[in-house]
């Protein structure tokens, strides 16, 4: 951004320059008017229709007109800063000539250029014009002394004519200078305000940009295509209070949400960013959607000095099974379009909105998505959209759009947005509008395996072989199978060697093999031992028993959890994307 000071004077210069051009045009118009006036008088006089007691005075009228005409013409060919001088000098000169030949005792005619000069909002210019006018006035007094007023004494001319007229001119000059000065102050203020406004507009545009970047991409599919979604957010003003979001709550849960902040414009946009971050942050740690909402609500209350709140509909969908848990915080119920085309509303008794009530205890409800089911989330900007006749789009209309032929989420989402646009018939949007469509593509049933074997060396290869067989059946590459073998070997051998101190005991292994992941649980009833607390070995520690194996495992799996429950060590590991 430019330095404010520099931009300031640049802008002011521009404004004054523009004003000068306008004032020149106006002055020119006045001069042209006078020019035409003299021409008409001259013609009338020539034709004998207008007589004055000065003989041949039509020539004088023509002379006056020509002075003004030359001024206007000359002014056209020079820069606008010089143009005003040419115009004004021509004007004053014509005044002087006029004053010489006709009995015009009034100074009125000299005051006109002074008044006119105010249009330039330039004190100096008004003063200079006043001085020029006064000089010409004195010259005419001297000239007239030698002609028409010869009969009057010098004293009379000075005290009864020149002095009072000088005072009139001086007062006019004082008043006009003041007005020009005040005008300039206003112009400066206005240009500063204009600059501030344009800066604010820039900032709002920038905020809108930041905000739209903060929303995730409008298209998303989970790593193995279990689910896909498409979203759209159309703000009513430049910045919006609506938003959509999606994120993985844990390895197998896709969270999707739409939300609507209670206000519009910049304050709502700021609250929206805060709400979005709070929910994302809360969802990271929370085990369930209701816990995420409860945490997000607390965070939002801390940061909410205004009286804003946010309604939202959040749902966590298990990408393996399609089981969806949701929380409705004062939001509109989404539409579930089943694979067979049937439309269902996901309705429940909504919980309170977020950001106001500390005591909010959201409840989660659930529903089951089957292969091909599509869920449509939306904000009230969709249903409340009005057309030029004041009718709202309405839920019925929205359901009708959903009832159409089966299409993918892209077309479903775009179709809703398009239908609302068509309905509005060009009427402006009053409220932000958000739509998110998500589809569940696959119910994958994982392979489960459970073994309970004596904690003996020969059991290790049994476990490895059994799991390998299943891995082969789901096309796990040989390379990945080898790595998984190492993991099983390290953990099982650890149990065999250390869990029971040479006594007999059992080890249980549970495996869950999905389309692109393996989850294994190892249990033993031996002495309590948390392998996660084993430090990463340094080079010298490589000889120490135990450390290296767990280090290897840790590096080979995506996540590893340990708990000691009911007298059993339970180590759970997950390896994704084999």
């Amino acid at each position, binding site marked *: 951004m430019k330095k404010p000071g520099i931009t300031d004077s640049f802008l002011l210069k521009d404004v004054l320059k523009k004003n000068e051009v306008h004032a020149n045009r106006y002055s020119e118009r006045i001069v042209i008017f006078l020019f035409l006036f003299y021409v008409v008088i001259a013609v009338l006089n020539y034709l004998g229709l207008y007589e004055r007691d000065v003989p041949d005075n039509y020539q004088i009228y023509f002379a006056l007109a020509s002075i003004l005409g030359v001024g206007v013409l000359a002014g056209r060919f020079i820069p606008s800063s010089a143009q005003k001088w040419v115009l004004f000098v021509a004007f004053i000169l014509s005044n002087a000539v006029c004053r010489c030949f006709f009995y015009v005792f009034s100074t009125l005619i000299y005051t006109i250029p002074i008044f006119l000069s105010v249009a330039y909002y330039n004190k100096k210019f008004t003063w200079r014009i006043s001085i020029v006018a006064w000089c010409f006035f004195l010259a005419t007094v001297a000239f007239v002394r030698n002609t028409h007023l010869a009969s009057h004494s010098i004293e009379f001319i000075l005290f009864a004519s020149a002095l009072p007229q000088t005072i009139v001119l001086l007062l006019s000059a004082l008043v006009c200078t003041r007005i020009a000065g005040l005008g300039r102050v206003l112009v400066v203020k206005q240009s500063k305000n204009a600059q501030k406004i344009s800066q604010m507009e820039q900032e709002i545009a920038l905020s809108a940009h930041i905000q739209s970047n903060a929303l995730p991409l409008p298209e998303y599919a989970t790593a193995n295509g279990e689910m896909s979604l498409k979203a759209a957010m159309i703000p009513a003003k430049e910045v919006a209070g609506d938003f959509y979001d999606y994120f993985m709550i844990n390895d197998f849960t896709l969270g999707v949400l739409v939300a609507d902040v209670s206000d519009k414009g910049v304050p709502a946009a700021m609250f929206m960013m805060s709400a979005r971050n709070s929910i994302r942050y809360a969802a990271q740690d929370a085990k369930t959607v209701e816990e995420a909402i409860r945490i997000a609500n607390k965070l939002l209350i801390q940061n909410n000095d205004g009286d804003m709140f946010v309604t939202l509909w959040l749902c966590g969908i298990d990408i393996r099974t399609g089981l969806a848990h949701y929380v409705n915080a004062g939001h509109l119920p989404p539409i579930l379009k089943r694979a067979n085309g049937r439309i269902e509303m996901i309705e429940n008794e909504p919980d309170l909105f977020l950001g106001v009530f500390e005591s909010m205890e959201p409840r989660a409800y659930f529903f089951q998505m089957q292969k091909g089911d599509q869920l449509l989330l939306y904000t009230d900007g969709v249903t409340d959209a009005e057309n030029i006749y004041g009718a709202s789009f309405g839920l019925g209309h929205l359901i009708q759009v959903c009832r159409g032929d089966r299409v993918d989420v892209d077309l479903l989402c775009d179709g809703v947005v398009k239908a609302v646009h068509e309905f509005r018939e060009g009427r402006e949007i009053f409220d932000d509008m958000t739509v998110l469509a998500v589809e569940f593509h696959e119910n994958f049933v994982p392979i489960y395996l459970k073994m309970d074997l004596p904690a003996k060396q020969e059991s290790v290869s049994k476990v490895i072989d059994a799991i390998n067989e299943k891995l082969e059946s789901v096309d796990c590459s040989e390379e990945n199978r080898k790595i998984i073998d190492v993991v099983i070997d390290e953990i099982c051998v650890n149990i065999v060697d250390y869990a029971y101190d040479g006594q007999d005991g059992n080890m249980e292994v549970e495996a869950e093999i999905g389309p692109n992941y393996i989850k294994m649980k190892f249990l033993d009833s031996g002495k309590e031992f948390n392998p996660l607390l084993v430090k990463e070995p340094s*080079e010298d520690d490589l000889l120490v028993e135990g450390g290296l*194996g767990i280090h290897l495992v840790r590096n080979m799996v995506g996540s590893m959890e340990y708990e000691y429950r009911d007298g059993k060590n339970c180590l759970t590991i997950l390896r994704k994307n084999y």
Partner: protein
Amino acid sequence: MQIESSLENGALKVALDGRLDSTTADELGAFFEKNLDDKFTNIILDFEKIDFVSSKGIRVIVAAYKKLGGRPISIVNSNSSVKEVFRLSGLFKVFDVK
């Protein structure tokens, strides 16, 4: 596990066959115990026929390395998952693994 060794140009070349895991690591350990003398300058472990190495196997090799007092051990013909085990153990810095 089968272990075959030979002296080639001053290097002790050890070819292994089988799995190098908790059950077999001791066999290699015993082999090193017997054969680490002053007659060679370095050890080359041929892993062509090894498709599995666990942390115990690695520990035996590290123990041998320490006994050698600076004489290098290199590992040749290892497959990608075996290489991965060495990489994850941070041993690329210590052994030349190919």
